[in-house]
């Protein structure tokens, strides 16, 4: 070999290696020439849950226990005029990327871009979908939006409209991306079927979403959901599905049908051919992913007619299950069904949490699914093997005609429940002997057992319903939960006192009776009463709460913040969340009693930082010492001690997020409800309190 070439070979090899590093290390931010991706590590918040793992975590630590009480309102955005009428149910969590806030808001589900320092509006996008939005099952502003970038300047906002269209907007201008779908839009109703393979009508077909698309690398994964309602009259509905699209072009990559077709595994769990007419089984909540493993986790919801299953005998896979699918192909890798033959509305809630822990001395890759029923189901996320046993246990059986309940349900052995899932005798109200006696007397009129999964009854004048806890509201519900990846600690707020009397009225049974449904199986949009449906239920207060003066039948705490150490499978702490409700504090039946802080009913989401768990109250209160309103609270994430609280004019209605820009950390939370119309409110430490920094933290 000539001497000049032999000198150049090592240099050439080095150059080739350098180019290879640049080409194949796209996730390293800040390197010259390489793509740059946003991250909570940079003080940004690029996904609904902070990241694709569902953590709701950021390592920001400027706001801490020493200064939380000094937070001031930095800016606010009222959503009043982002739609045709005022909004009172803003459930959005904004994103922050490159110093710009992106958020949904208003009753038209508009998208706004704001300066992250001041809230000044940069652009707004809104789509008037006419009747398609008026009859949509998932109205109002929804829970948020998503962001995609190629890391080289092509930045897009990705969201789903009320009328179920997937839209991509230029993040800098708010203009639809012409090269995505048709002029920036994909009609997601196309391809949705009911019965075996009938296409749903594009205007009135029942499908939509409140949740955000999951963006994993260059793939956008979109979920589906239908109308919410516990007294649905139709055994037929649109079939749930999850689809993946190319982020640049919108071309569909794969589709996962949540109700298996004949020949597919799981189809046999729909007896009497009920796979054909049953719908729902969507994924209405947030999804998550393990990009390294190439897996996407789908929390699947309930089948058609939440509380009566006579039209769909069988276990009904994959309803109320966690399903892991391949990111590239959508093929199912494993599944676990939380509730067999679902009839309690325990639909799966919140993003599955992608946590790495050390269990029995070994590193384990987990996926942890929170639920309405107070249990955290923890699996090996690659294989689906439960980390701790979940034995099948016998449960009460239904006596409603046509209902064939599962003889058993899985009961996780570990970790302990983070909130109640049945009404224990010891948990019945006992502020006074008289109240407890009244409650026990009321409970004699119900089918009450010391277990979850008590089936609904048809009231007969003596028994008015079956006592269940958390089966509609939770436990955990749409706000989901979060975790600290540094310590493998799960955190959640949970509603700890939702007691319901599950009943199927005789009038309702006449409608859902399989013998009646079989004569004329149609979906709601083919009904002559479409848009004018009535509900079935009692017309007044139930005997369950008689004589209790409006007090809950169950003891406090009414709402909690719970933490679970996933390395041990143990409860780290559980504390009441929220001031004692006014109705309890001021109750004439409790006059003279010293009632400890009870926490509040309701469901709210959290954000986790380097040292804090931050979450607002779900209720308005007016205790002595402050104006009527709600508090945004900070808890020490190691101990659960409340270390700070700031006043808000209305309760939290959307999950908080936090970000940093120009060396200042902000927290944004959506608030509203009652007579207070919705707004995003941004808090920060006063400028005068900030430590001097020269570099962005």
């Amino acid at each position, binding site marked *: 070999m000539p001497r000049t070439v032999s000198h150049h070979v090592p240099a050439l090899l080095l150059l080739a290696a350098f180019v290879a590093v640049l080409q194949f290390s796209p996730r390293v931010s800040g390197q010259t020439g390489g793509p740059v991706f946003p991250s909570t590590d940079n003080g940004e918040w690029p996904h609904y849950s902070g990241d694709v793992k569902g953590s709701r975590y950021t390592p920001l630590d400027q706001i801490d226990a020493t200064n939380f009480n000094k937070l001031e309102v930095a800016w606010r955005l009222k959503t009043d005029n982002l739609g045709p009428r005022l909004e009172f149910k803003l459930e959005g969590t904004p994103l922050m990327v490159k110093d710009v806030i992106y958020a949904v808001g208003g009753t038209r589900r508009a998208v706004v871009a704001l300066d992250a320092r001041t809230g000044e509006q940069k652009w707004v996008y809104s789509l008037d979908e006419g009747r398609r939005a008026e009859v949509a099952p998932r109205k109002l502003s929804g829970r948020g939006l998503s962001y995609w970038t190629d890391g080289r300047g092509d930045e897009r906002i990705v969201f789903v409209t009320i009328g179920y269209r997937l839209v991509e907007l230029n993040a800098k201008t708010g203009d639809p991306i012409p090269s995505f779908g048709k002029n920036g839009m994909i009609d997601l109703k196309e391809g949705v079927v009911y019965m075996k393979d009938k296409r749903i009508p594009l205007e009135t077909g029942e499908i939509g979403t409140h949740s955000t698309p999951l963006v994993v690398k260059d793939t956008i994964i979109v979920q589906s959901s239908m109308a919410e309602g516990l007294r649905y009259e139709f055994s037929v509905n649109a079939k749930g599905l999850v689809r993946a699209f190319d982020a640049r072009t919108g071309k569909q990559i794969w589709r996962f049908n949540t109700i298996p077709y004949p020949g597919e595994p799981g189809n046999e769990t729909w007896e009497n051919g009920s796979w054909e007419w049953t719908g729902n089984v969507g994924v209405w909540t947030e999804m998550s992913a393990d990009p390294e493993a190439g897996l996407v986790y789908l929390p699947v919801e309930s089948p058609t007619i939440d509380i009566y299953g006579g039209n769909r005998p069988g276990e009904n896979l994959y309803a109320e299950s966690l399903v892991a699918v391949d990111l590239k192909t959508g093929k199912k890798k494993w599944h676990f069904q939380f509730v067999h033959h679902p009839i309690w509305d325990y639909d799966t809630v919140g993003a599955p949490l992608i946590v790495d822990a050390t269990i029995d001395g070994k590193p384990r890759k987990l996926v942890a699914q929170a639920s309405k029923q107070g249990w955290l189901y923890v699996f090996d996320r690659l294989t689906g093997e439960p980390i701790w046993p979940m034995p099948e246990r016998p449960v009460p059986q239904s006596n409603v005609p046509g209902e064939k309940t599962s003889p058993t349900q899985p009961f996780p052995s570990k970790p302990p429940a983070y909130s109640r899932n049945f009404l224990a005798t010891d948990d019945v109200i006992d502020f006074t002997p008289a109240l407890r006696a009244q409650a026990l007397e009321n409970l004699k009129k119900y089918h009450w057992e010391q277990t979850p999964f008590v089936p609904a009854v048809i009231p007969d004048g003596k028994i008015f319903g079956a006592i269940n806890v958390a089966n509609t509201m939770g436990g955990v519900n749409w706000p989901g939960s979060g975790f600290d990846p540094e310590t493998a600690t799960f955190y959640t707020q949970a509603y700890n006192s939702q007691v319901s009397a599950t009943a199927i009225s005789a009038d309702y049974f006449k409608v859902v009776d399989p013998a009646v449904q079989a004569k004329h199986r149609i979906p709601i949009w083919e009904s002559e009463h479409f848009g004018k449906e009535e509900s079935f*239920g009692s017309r007044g207060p139930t005997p369950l709460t008689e004589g209790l003066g409006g007090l809950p039948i169950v003891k406090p705490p009414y709402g909690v913040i719970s933490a679970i150490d996933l390395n041990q499978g143990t409860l780290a702490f559980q504390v009441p969340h929220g001031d004692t409700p006014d109705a309890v504090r001021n*109750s004439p039946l409790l006059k003279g009693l010293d009632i400890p802080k009870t926490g509040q009913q309701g469901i709210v989401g959290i954000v986790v930082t380097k040292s804090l768990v931050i979450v607002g109250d779900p209720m308005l209160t007016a205790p002595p010492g402050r104006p009527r309103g709600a508090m945004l609270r900070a808890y020490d994430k190691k101990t659960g001690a409340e270390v700070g609280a700031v006043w808000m004019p209305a309760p939290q209605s959307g999950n908080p997020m936090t970000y940093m820009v120009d060396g200042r950390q902000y927290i944004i939370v959506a608030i509203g409800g009652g007579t207070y119309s919705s707004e995003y409110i941004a808090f920060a430490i006063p400028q005068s309190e900030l430590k001097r920094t020269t570099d962005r933290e």
Partner: protein
Amino acid sequence: MCDRSILVCCVAVWGLSSVEFVLRAQPTPSVWDGVYTEPQAARGATLYEKECGQCHGPGGTGGGMAPALVGPSFSANYDGQTVGDLFDRNRTTMPPGKEGQLNGQENADITAYVLKVNQFPAGQGELPSQGMVLKGIQYLAFKP
């Protein structure tokens, strides 16, 4: 002349203060004063089942997405406000997708039903449908 002017002033001041005393002495009506009738609440119940119950549950006990219209959270939202605030909230935002399509009487009847399920007493006179009048009725969670 001066004495007469003083007398006129005194009478005027006395008269005004008497009117003010009378006005102050009139208690502001509240939901505890029987501001709806049972037949009105029954009409409201029928309308509630048709327009509201699918989301807000039987008897206002709540659904998954729509909050309860009874209980501590609901009473906290309106305690210290007025029936007019509740009426206007319904009139302008409910039911979603059909806002403003129920007429004033229907909204008043549904509001009456909500008062009933919150265990406020019925009375002799129907709840009116004029927002300004309803703004004069206090919503108090506990009987004063």
